[in-house]
């Protein structure tokens, strides 16, 4: 394999993951939190694929595919929740959604 070794990809994935995690931890808009989560998932995917390449086994890629599916599901639910919140005229702010009450 020419070009950068798998380690470089992993470093990119780590940085990406950290960025996403910061977004999840710091942002208050649920939408951006969701987007940051996507970044974290993709960072994980990148790791999976990198290791798949390293070991020459496709299992990692299949895993990444499954993660994609789950991510899609999560987005569907997350967006549904956000829409429901907006409908009830609740503030779109995760800090204010702090009580388990309807």
């Amino acid at each position: 394999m020419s070009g950068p070794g798998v380690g470089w990809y992993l470093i990119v994935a780590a940085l990406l993951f950290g960025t996403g995690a910061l977004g999840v931890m710091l942002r208050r808009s649920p939408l951006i939190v969701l987007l940051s989560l996507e970044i974290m998932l993709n960072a994980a995917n990148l790791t999976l694929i990198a290791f798949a390449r390293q070991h020459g086994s496709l299992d990692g890629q299949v895993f990444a595919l499954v993660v994609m599916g789950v991510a899609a599901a999560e987005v569907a639910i997350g967006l549904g929740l956000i829409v429901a919140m907006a409908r009830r005229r609740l503030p779109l702010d995760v800090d204010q959604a702090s009580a388990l009450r309807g």
Partner: protein
Amino acid sequence: MAGFLVWVIWFAAAAACLGTGVAVVSFANPFYSALSLIGNLASLAVLYLLLSAEFLAAAQVLVYAGSVMVMFLFVLAYLGGRADAPWAGGPPLLRTAAIVAAVALLVEIVVVLGLAWGDNLSDPAEVTGAFGSPAAIGELLVTDHLLAFEITSIVLLVAAVGGVVLGTTREKEATE
């Protein structure tokens, strides 16, 4: 030469990937964030290609950048121009703790990678052209990973139904 070209492509893709990632997190307007994420996904797809995961790269672009992000944009459009909640607030130490935790995670990852670097990561396996092809992945999906595949499909179905339920206006609420 080819190696150099790969390095260039890799570098460009990685930089785009990280830049758009930071952009996603830092834009005040979710709309811009969402657009940045599309860029992020696209650049990731390039990295996948470099890792000989052609099918996944295609899926990334089609499924993620195509459908999922379109859904995002629809929702954003539906919600209209809401001002985003600000960055900070909440418990005073939260911000510091978050940054410290993220940095610590990064450091740990690097340390762990470093511990394993020399042994395993230097010498990737030889692969054929069929590696990462739809056919190969498809075969694995319906043989070894059939259960994961089926469960994923059920999860997706449930999520779809859940999304519909969440999105539907109940009559009682509608009259309120």
